[in-house]
């Protein structure tokens, strides 16, 4: 994250995105998550952004999908809290742009006693936590 982004976005918003309270939020239901994961564009968004945060424009170069499709999938992924949005300075034109990062490590479906439950493990990556620690100093 660059310091300039603090001018545009209040610090509290930025920390909210990485707040560990995400782990206790209600998990979306199986239909929603499975339906999203069935979609190739949604999967590509998750796999590509897991390597580095990406803007919608960067995602368009990676996915074989139209801009509106990518935006729709991003919105659906955000509704399920599988992806988070941040603002950062654009190295190309100096303005700010929105980048997306996954908020997901593992999805588990458990079958027990006549119940099928879906749980989402959102623990933060070790290197991201390390970065937050150093940048917060």
């Amino acid at each position: 994250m660059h310091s300039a982004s603090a001018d545009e976005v209040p610090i509290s918003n930025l920390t909210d995105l990485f707040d560990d309270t995400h782990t206790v939020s209600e998990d979306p239901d199986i239909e929603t998550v499975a339906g999203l994961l069935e979609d190739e564009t949604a999967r590509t968004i998750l796999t590509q952004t897991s390597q580095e945060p990406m803007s919608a424009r960067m995602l368009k170069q990676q996915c074989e999908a139209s801009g509106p499709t990518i935006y729709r999938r991003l919105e659906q992924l955000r509704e399920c809290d599988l992806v988070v949005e941040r603002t950062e300075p654009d190295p190309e034109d100096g303005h700010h742009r929105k980048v997306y990062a996954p908020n997901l490590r593992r999805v588990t479906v458990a079958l027990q006693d006549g119940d099928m439950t879906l749980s989402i493990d959102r623990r933060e990556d070790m290197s991201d936590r390390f970065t937050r620690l150093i940048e917060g100093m």
Partner: protein
Amino acid sequence: MQTEIGNTARLALQAYELVGAAFGLFIAYLAYRGYRRNDSRPMLFLALGFSIIFGLAVPVFGLSLAFPAVSPVVSQIFIQTFEIIGFLCIIYALRMEP
């Protein structure tokens, strides 16, 4: 005979240092990954500092096998210089605005 034992002990100690180096390099790897994933320049210099300080044990171990005759004073100056450079990298990373 006496020096033989001394040499073995020295090699064992240096091999043990490699274990510590492996953990240090793991931290360097985490920092580098943090730099890549979050575009954070301080993490790059942190990774560089950790790599220099802890990664040094590996080539030093190799060099001590290749040139056993080099005086400990020379190798100590060599190691110390790189450690100082590594610490300066970390201080620079911490001073930097993210």
